[in-house]
């Protein structure tokens, strides 16, 4: 994935070159990448890291001890954990490719939370055991619903070349 040199890649480089010299100097290697896991992004990285550990360890315990009780719910927890892991790694690595991966994953996460939330309210028999995303993540103070929204907002802001830096973070030379 990192070695990808498709049309996307060339487009990114072209976009980077269109930036002002100052901005381009800081982000030559990976356009927009250095900022992805910094500032507010680092707080997101922290939350996603915690949720990766929580969701993955929870689903591994459930799958290994009582898989037949609620296979769908446990597999869903596992899938959620994998999505969180992908976003964590993407935020940590930075770069335009990672930003796109994170955008797709955050969108999938948001859709998943909403779909599972509606399903659990409409037909609770589909999920006999709780998952991270049951009832819109109420067991996790709605963070599963809030995180992807924050993530998408941040990824959108970090993607903009100039205005992406948080207030007062980078005094322009």
């Amino acid at each position: 994935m990192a070695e990808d040199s498709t049309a996307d890649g060339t487009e990114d480089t072209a976009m980077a070159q269109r930036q002002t010299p100052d901005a381009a100097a800081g982000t030559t290697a990976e356009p927009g990448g250095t900022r992805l896991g910094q500032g507010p992004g680092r707080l997101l990285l922290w939350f996603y890291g915690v949720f990766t550990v929580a969701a993955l360890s929870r689903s591994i315990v459930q799958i290994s001890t009582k898989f037949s009780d609620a296979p769908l719910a446990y597999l869903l927890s596992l899938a959620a954990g994998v999505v969180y892991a992908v976003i964590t790694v993407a935020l940590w690595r930075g770069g335009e490719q990672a930003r796109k991966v994170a955008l797709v994953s955050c969108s999938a996460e948001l859709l998943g939370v909403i779909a599972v939330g509606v399903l659990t309210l409409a037909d609770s028999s589909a999920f006999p055991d709780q998952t991270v995303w049951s009832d819109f993540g109420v067991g996790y103070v709605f963070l599963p619903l809030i995180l992807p929204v924050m993530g998408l907002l941040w990824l959108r802001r970090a993607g903009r070349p100039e205005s992406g830096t948080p207030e007062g973070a980078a005094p322009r030379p």
Partner: protein
Amino acid sequence: MLDAVTLTVTVTALLLAAWCGLAAYRDEPTNDWHFIGMAVVTLAALVQLVVALVRLGHGDRPDHGVAVFVGYQIGAACTIPAAAFMSLAERSRWGSAIVAAGGVILAVLELRLHEIWGAGHG
């Protein structure tokens, strides 16, 4: 004993969260005093881990399984150190926010630990 330690960790974690939350609100990074605070909370979590292991060694069993209980204990002991390292890397208000979030997360873990251990045997 375990209940008392759990309560101590919860309260100190919430205090740390409030303190670092205030720093984040004031647009300050974490300072040396914050790190001393993190060390205190981590120490309390480690004491809790030892007490829990001693209780397990004496044959006491948590209501919801030993594996889950020990997993949560280890997670609780690692939460604040992990937040501390991330706030070292992030020298801005967001580093303080990370520790504040870590304190709240630890408090939630303590609540779960209390449930997993079971109210029956303090």
